[in-house]
């Protein structure tokens, strides 16, 4: 065993040298200092045991560094290895004398190690050593799901299974003994270590040890990892690991930890002293430690951000610029003035109207610096009917109630009766005239909630008889006989989990367990297209706010962007580690947010297909997302009953709203963004003061840069109201154009 370890150590050293060389090329000296020393010093600490080989290697490294004039690295390495300059000077001079002798020996060693290295690089194709962050980002950005066997073989390294609990316990004792400020940060290591040690044990067929290990330490883990632990606990055999997706997630993606430099040094030193190679290997191979300079974070700061399946998002992942501003509204001049004049004449309040119109005009004319270019992605042209709708919208907007803490919206609850627990999705049209419901019995039903009934277009034969020149041709094409308050759309062969109206109310999208997304016409009430691409249940779908595009996401962990006239997806957004549970378009249609069962939210750029934000902090699968109307903020709700608020531009969590006791299925900002409404399985609708929530957060440069934010504990102050239903879970919320809140759910007797 010792031989194997030695070999590995050498190999590590070699690897480090290699990376240093690459770093040298990129001039990134600083990064190299963090980890190579550790392994080499691990070797050093062994030197008393007699193996001069290690010492020699170390010296060779030093020599190599010196030759490359990396004096700084030499100093650091020496300091870390605990070699005094004098102490090492003499051997160096000694070996310098035998320079030609020493180097070849290392070379030979290196030759041996090179073969090992190549093996390792096969074994860890995704993960170059943690020493080169830029490379990691590049690699993980394009990471693929590697072959299962290759992934698993990474666990083949054999340690003594009996020692695992000892290792773990030793680390636990150490972390418990460190200073308070470091303890919270270092405690983050526990969970990934625990997982990987357990998996290693299982992989190497130490079933009983694995069980004992699990029983002994699973209780120590943070409670929000409970669900993953449950999955983990069911895996007790090597064969189980092959098909298990969660396992693959643990393996293929490095668990990301953010640790301050000081804390990291502490940990490193401890592991070196104890020669805790097993743990060190795991940290090297399976963990990505994102080191930052500055104060260690507090427990609450860490807890706020952790909880996701694969640790926190890397800081670099959230650095890309996001154009979160809104697109310029197209100008529709003539009719608006007409309407306004009419309104003025009717109400006789010209003074009040004037400034409003001005503000609206100025808003639309000024180009928001944060907004994407108007033509960044091609958007459909406005049709006449769309313009008409926009005018209606503006007219309504003038009658909008200004909400606030003192002026809460009225809530109108639409309850679905006799749904027999079968209601799975609801959507309202933007003008609140139609309601669609998706049901577990595969049907989609559309209701009209205005006196205007739903009518079908006449059949082709009848249409030919119509006088096409007449003024009311649009009225004539409708079949009066089919008028009814609701229509049922049949086509899916599984529960309908997602549903979305197109902004122009001509189409309806539905996604289902059968793996298809269907586009329905609300003129003929027939299915137009079935989009096949997801092979597994499609959990959610949504139309772009400008129509034409739509997004879908499901069990296959890939979100797809479609255009209604293409039968294949335009973009595929891959990266989530578990089911995509909800999908939302940014108001400017240039970005798409997806929430997942891996407890992260990702923001994708529609243009490039890149993931531009990874937001972590939820402790359960995310089931609802909502963008604020100005596009700047986002809210997300999960099974843990918490609503988190995010600043999209900075990629930061800016608020946490606690109060719900069950999964939050519905989130909606009011039309002006002052109030956030959340609806949950706990049969309540809650209203939150978002203006205050966003105001309370002070964003200085430091927090913006590091993302270490102190969340104010002010959920109770922000909660404006709780409204209970008797026994109706709230599964959809919608603000009408006048800021009346509509809620929907199925009565559950």
């Amino acid at each position, binding site marked *: 065993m010792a031989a194997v370890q030695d070999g590995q150590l050498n190999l590590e050293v070699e690897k480090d040298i290699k990376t240093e060389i690459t770093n040298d090329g990129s001039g990134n000296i600083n990064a190299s200092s963090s980890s190579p020393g550790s392994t080499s010093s691990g070797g050093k600490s062994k030197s008393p045991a007699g193996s001069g080989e290690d010492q020699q290697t170390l010296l060779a490294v030093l020599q190599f560094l010196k030759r490359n004039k990396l004096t700084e690295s030499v100093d650091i390495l020496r300091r870390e290895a605990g070699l005094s300059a004098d102490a090492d000077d003499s051997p160096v001079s000694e070996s310098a004398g035998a320079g030609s002798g020493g180097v070849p020996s290392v070379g030979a060693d290196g030759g041996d190690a090179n073969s090992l290295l190549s093996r390792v690089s096969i074994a860890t194709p995704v993960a170059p050593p943690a020493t080169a962050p830029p490379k990691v980002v590049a690699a993980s950005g394009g990471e693929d799901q590697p072959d299962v066997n290759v992934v698993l073989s990474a666990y083949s390294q054999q340690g003594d299974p009996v020692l695992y609990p000892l290792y773990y316990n030793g680390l636990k004792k150490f972390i418990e003994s460190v200073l308070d400020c470091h303890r919270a940060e270092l405690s983050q290591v526990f969970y990934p270590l625990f997982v990987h040690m357990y998996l290693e044990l299982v992989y190497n067929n130490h079933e009983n040890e694995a069980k004992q290990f699990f029983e002994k330490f699973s209780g120590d883990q943070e409670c929000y990892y409970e669900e993953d632990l449950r999955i983990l606990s069911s895996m007790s055999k090597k064969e189980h690991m092959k098909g298990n997706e969660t396992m693959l997630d643990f393996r293929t993606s490095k668990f990301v930890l953010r640790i301050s430099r000081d804390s990291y040094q502490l940990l490193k030193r401890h592991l070196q002293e104890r020669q805790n190679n097993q743990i060190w290997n795991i940290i090297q191979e399976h963990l990505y430690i994102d080191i930052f300079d500055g104060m260690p974070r507090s427990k609450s700061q860490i807890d706020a951000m952790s909880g996701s399946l694969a640790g926190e998002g890397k800081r670099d992942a959230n650095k890309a610029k996001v154009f979160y501003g809104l697109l310029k509204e197209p100008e529709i001049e003539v009719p608006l003035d007409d309407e306004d004049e009419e309104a003025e004449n009717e109400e006789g309040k010209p003074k009040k109207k004037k400034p409003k119109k001005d503000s609206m005009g100025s808003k639309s004319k000024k180009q928001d610096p944060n907004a994407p270019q108007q033509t960044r992605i091609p958007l459909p042209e406005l049709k006449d009917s769309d313009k008409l709708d926009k005018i209606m919208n503006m007219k309504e907007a003038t009658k909008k109630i200004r909400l606030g803490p003192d002026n809460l919206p009225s809530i109108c609850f639409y309850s679905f009766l006799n749904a027999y627990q079968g209601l799975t999705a609801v959507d309202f049209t933007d003008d609140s005239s139609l309601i669609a419901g998706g049901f577990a019995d595969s049907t989609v039903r559309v209701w009209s909630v205005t006196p205007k009934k739903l009518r079908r277009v006449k059949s082709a034969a009848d249409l030919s008889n119509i006088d096409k020149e007449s003024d009311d041709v649009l009225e004539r094409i409708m079949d009066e006989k089919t008028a009814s308050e609701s229509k049922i759309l049949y086509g899916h062969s599984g529960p309908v989990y997602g549903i979305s109206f197109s902004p122009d109310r001509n189409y309806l999208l539905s996604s289902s367990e059968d793996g298809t997304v269907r586009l329905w016409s609300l003129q003929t009430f027939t299915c137009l297209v079935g989009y096949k691409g997801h092979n597994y249940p499609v959990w959610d779908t949504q139309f772009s706010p400008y129509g034409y595009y739509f997004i879908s996401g499901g069990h296959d962990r890939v979100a797809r962007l479609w255009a209604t006239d293409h039968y294949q997806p335009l973009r595929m957004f891959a990266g989530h580690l578990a089911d995509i549970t909800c999908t939302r378009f940014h108001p400017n249609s240039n970005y798409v947010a997806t929430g997942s069962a891996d407890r992260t939210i990702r923001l994708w750029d529609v243009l490039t297909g890149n993931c531009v934000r990874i937001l972590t902090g939820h402790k359960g699968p995310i089931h609802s997302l909502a963008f604020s109307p100005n596009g700047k903020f986002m809210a997300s709700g999960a099974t843990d009953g918490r609503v988190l608020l995010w600043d999209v531009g900075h990629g930061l969590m800016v608020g946490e709203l606690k109060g719900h006791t069950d999964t939050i299925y519905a989130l909606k900002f009011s039309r002006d963004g002052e109030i956030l409404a959340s609806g949950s399985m706990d049969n309540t609708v809650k209203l939150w003061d978002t203006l205050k929530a966003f105001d309370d957060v002070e964003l200085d440069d430091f927090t913006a840069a590091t993302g270490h934010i102190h969340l104010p504990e002010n959920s109770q102050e922000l909660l404006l109201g*709780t409204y209970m239903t008797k026994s109706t879970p709230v599964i959809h919320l919608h603000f009408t154009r006048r800021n009346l809140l509509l809620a929907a759910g199925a009565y559950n007797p």
Partner: protein
Amino acid sequence: MAEERRPKQCTVVLPTESMKAMAESIGVGQLQEESCAALSEEVSYRIKDIAQDALKFMHHGKRCKLTTSDIDHALKLKNVEPLYGFQSQEFIPFRFASGGGRELHFYEEKEVDLSDIINTPLPRVPLDVSLKAPKEQQKTESTEPLKAVKPGQEEEGAIQKGQGATSAEAKGKKDGLMRMKPRSTHELSVEQQLYYKEITEACVGSCEAKRAEALQSIATDPGLYQMLPRFSTFISEGVRVNVVQNNLALLIYLMRMVKALMDNPTLYLEKYLHELIPAVVTCIVSKQLCLRPDVDNHWALRDFAARLMAQSCKTFSTTTNNIQSRITKTFTKSWLDDKTQWTTRYGCIAGLSELGPDVIKTLILPRLTVEGARIKAVSDGPVVSNIDKIGADHVQSLLLKHCASVIAKARPLPDNVEQYRADYGYLGPMLCSHVVKARAQAALQAQQVNRTTLTITQPRPTLTVSQSGIGGSGGSRTPSIIKVPSSLTLMSTRPGTPTQPSPPATKYIVMATSSGSSSTQQVITRTSSSVTSTVASATSTLQPLVKLESGGSGGLGGSRPLQKYIVVSLPSSSSLESKSGVLPPSSSASPILLEARIKVDCSDSPGASTQSPH
């Protein structure tokens, strides 16, 4: 703490016995223990895996309950064929059985006869999904009237107000949320509304004949439960109003309604006691129940109500609601108060003494001396007021009446007047004579056999005595409808041996009566059974049960001569005997009720028309 939350997760696997059973079920016998263990681990892992996937479907289905279809979908994800035949919406159709130290869950699969399925009419189509929204956005607060209108209905939609949501608008919103549940459950059909109107009018109207019929209907009709909340509110409101107006007659009518409701075997009043008990207690202890307390006989009402109270205590008192002890406490407290008026005092004592000899023994007997002194002060002292004097007299006779029988049983025989005076003070001598009388009567009854039926001819003590106008009317109503010859009822048990129960003897009394146009034949079944104890308070056994059974096919057709069998269970003779001296209420009341009941059965009352013939 964390460990408590997560009980040993990784060790939970299926037992190997299950593997064996499953293997056997598919025809593989002789599975080795090792393979069982390996299999069980594998199967457990797969099951957990599937269950975790099924949970996803549950979450996305926006439910809190895992259904079999979720599991089917999870299987589909894994490319496994779903399990067919477990399509149950509501619950997982496994049954549990245990025996022989083994616990077993099994799926109940009954053999189904296809022809049965084909021949049975199709079940009703389940209601289609519908969307409901509040009709109007309510801004006003209308919750209070809604609550008040529907009695007995739990307040629904307990809306909690969040912080800061105190504006009137918020209330309006709550209302919008509240009105989701259709409030149709307690609505009455038109017929029921008519019936309710008729009955309540008759019960408080002036016509005694109608009243008797109405009460009879209330006491026997099996379909009244929907109207129960209304009746209960009617009574409680009625008592409240009429106590204030000192309308004795109406109070009596209302108490009779309570009695009738209690007598109805198909009604269970427990949910409405919160309205009924206050009404009844009001009639027992109210300071004033009539306009002229010196003349009117409100004492009878108090007696009657006290009996009702005792009966409901017996029927409904449980360890959780503690009705009896609460009532006892209430009575005792106001009785012990010195300032209590004689009327209330009378009510308290009546209420207590109706609760049974045990209560009398423990609560009333020790107070006899004090009470005697108080009575003496009124009767011997200067005449303060006539009312007080009458009150004291009534209290005195009440005490004598109730205590005598208890003392007669409890006290050893030599009845010494002086001894009594020493023990019970002022009331002692009178008590002594009553006790002696009671003993004599008991002895007399022990000798006489089967004089029980005499009670039928006895006047109703409660209601006939009460007031002019009400009283006597019951008696005037053709009391000869059933004449039960005493000779026919001789079939009763030997009262001398109460401890030895004899099999219930049944006697059929067949007699023809003509009522209305149709000649009917009635069969009266009297079942008298012996009671093991001679406790005077056997009220519960005295509930006369009248069953109407239509013999012919055209049960309620009025034109045809129809045959009716009326089964009446009468109180046992022994209990009657023991109480005949003190005129127990129910024993004497029951024949009259019996009479009234049969009357209703013969005529077609509105209640009878709604009830289905069995």
